[in-house]
């Protein structure tokens, strides 16, 4: 297909004169680009270039951008280039498209692995400082709320208990039942080999109440409520609702964060007790089905080995876990900046930091309780 524009090139006195005519629209952009690159490849032979646009009938932004690009590239190579004969409207368009030269940002130097690890360590340190700072402010907010109980947003406490507690019961029951079930199933064969069938009760019961009940529940709460808190507060932050709250005389920490953290801490022990019970039920089922251990024998064995401290230590863990993940989620949510992308980033960050903190805290508790009870 013939091009819809004409391109006539003449050499004159060391310079290059280009005369363009016809229609320069998006359909012709590919053809025009070929002509432009030809000129750029030959440019060193000429001292200047003039482009005559007097015969151009129509000119759109895309072709104009290519011509402006040609002029800019020639300019960089110290070859003066000018447009001549353009109509008034086309001259205006050329000015608008090419009048400002933005300063290029210096390209970032790629960082080596050591530098990246160092930067990541500094970031983790700062993030930890922010969470600790936030925790301190929350303590002050809690003290103020104790002095002025009316200032506490009780509505959000109950709402959090409902959403993070009652609404989470089915998933907590399912996950923990399966946890107890799998643990008993995996150990059944080994225990049967030594004739130690009854010890499945010790294994499942103690592991559930001391470790897995609180931990699995905290992980579920983190995934459900922690992410929800971070996203909810993050959205409030970017939509200026948090600022509006402050201008109405209410502090976000006292009004938004404290009720959520408190609600989680109140509901977590109840969820953990349910998790313990259903996890043990999973063990009872496997024990009865594969090890010939009756439910009553299972429970009797459990009563002999399990102390109230085992249950209490699990409940203490659950309170600390839920408080920690509530604080981290809210802190990350309130640190949101930059719109929808920022909300997503902070929500991910809240879940990752919370999970890491849960595992770390669990390890600390295991050692601490081990020392205390030895």
């Amino acid at each position, binding site marked *: 297909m013939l091009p819809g524009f004409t391109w006539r090139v003449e050499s004159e006195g060391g310079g290059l004169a280009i005369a363009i005519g016809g229609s320069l629209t998006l359909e012709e952009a590919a053809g025009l680009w070929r002509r432009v690159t030809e000129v750029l490849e030959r440019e060193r032979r000429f001292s200047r270039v003039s482009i005559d646009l007097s015969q151009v009938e129509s000119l759109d932004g895309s072709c104009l951008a290519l011509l402006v690009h040609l002029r800019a590239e020639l300019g960089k190579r110290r070859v003066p280039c000018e447009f001549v004969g353009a109509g008034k409207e086309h001259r205006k368009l050329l000015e608008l498209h090419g009048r400002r030269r933005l300063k290029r940002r210096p390209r970032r130097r790629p960082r080596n692995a050591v530098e990246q690890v160092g930067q990541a360590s500094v970031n983790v340190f700062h993030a930890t400082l922010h969470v600790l700072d936030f925790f301190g402010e929350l303590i002050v907010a809690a003290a*103020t709320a104790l002095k002025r109980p009316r*200032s506490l947003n009780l509505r959000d406490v109950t709402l959090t208990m409902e959403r993070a507690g009652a609404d989470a019961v089915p998933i907590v029951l399912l996950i923990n039942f399966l946890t107890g079930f799998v643990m008993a199933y995996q150990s059944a064969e080994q225990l049967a080999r030594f004739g130690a069938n009854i010890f499945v009760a010790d294994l499942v019961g103690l592991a559930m109440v001391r470790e897995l009940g609180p931990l699995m529940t905290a992980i579920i709460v983190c995934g459900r409520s922690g992410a929800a808190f971070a996203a909810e507060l993050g*959205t*409030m932050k970017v*939509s*200026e*609702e948090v*600022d*509006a*709250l*402050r*201008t*109405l*005389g*209410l*502090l976000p920490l*006292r009004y938004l964060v404290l009720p959520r953290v408190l609600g989680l801490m109140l509901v977590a022990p109840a969820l953990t007790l349910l998790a313990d019970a259903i996890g043990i039920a999973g063990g009872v089922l496997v024990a009865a089905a594969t090890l010939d251990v009756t439910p009553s024998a299972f429970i009797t064995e459990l009563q002999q080995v399990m102390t109230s401290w085992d249950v209490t230590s699990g409940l203490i863990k659950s309170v600390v876990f839920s408080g920690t993940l509530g604080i981290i989620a809210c802190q990350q949510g309130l640190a949101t900046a930059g719109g929808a992308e920022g909300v997503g980033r902070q929500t991910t960050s809240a879940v990752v930091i919370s999970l890491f903190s849960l595992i770390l805290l669990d390890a600390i508790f295991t050692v601490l309780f081990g020392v205390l009870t030895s």
Partner: protein
Amino acid sequence: MTDPLIRVRGLTLGHTDRVLLENADFDVARGDVFVILGGSGCGKSTLLRHLIGLERPIGGQIEIAGVGAPRLVGEAPEYGVMFQSGALFSSLTVGENVAFALSEWTDLPQPAINAIVRAKLALVGLEAAEDKLPAEISGGMKKRAAIARALAFEPSLLFLDEPSAGLDPVSAAELDELIIVLNRALGLTVVMVTHELQSIFKVGKNCIMLDKESRSIIARGDPRALERESRDPRVRRFFRREAA
């Protein structure tokens, strides 16, 4: 000017990476409708956030009613704020949004709060939207609801960030009328950020114009007089909507 409501001296503000305004001085008189003008990115909304107390300045002083800058430390609001997006609480109805400060900071019984809410919503023409959630109303209605919320605690000072931006001409004109009525009838001092020329000339009594390049106030006074008399090309371009 005697006894200004807002006194700003030597104010320097900006973000962590750049200063937007340096060493600015200005006063806002009681009963004024004071407009902060300037091109995009010159720091108008940032200045408003500093006046409100949402951000701390790099340097200088802001005094409101003879005391230091507002600190937003959890006390009953002394002034009303309407944010550019409205910033209504999305989980509450329009009525609950307007009632928010009254419920939190007064001992008024619920029927009394309801009566005040209805009156404030009627003032902004939103009686029918009391039970709607913010997501169910238009952008213009959100702005009017935000003004009703800002007025609920009977402030003597109202901050408005781009009140008529994004509104159709009729809604914008109605909002301008509302601001004039509030100023004249209630003696409310209004500080607003806007670039809407019609609004500026209609409601503004005094203004300052910020400039991005010089990071300073380049004009101050009655916007109508500035439009007629200013010889500063930047001011003339702004008021005449001329390209640079």
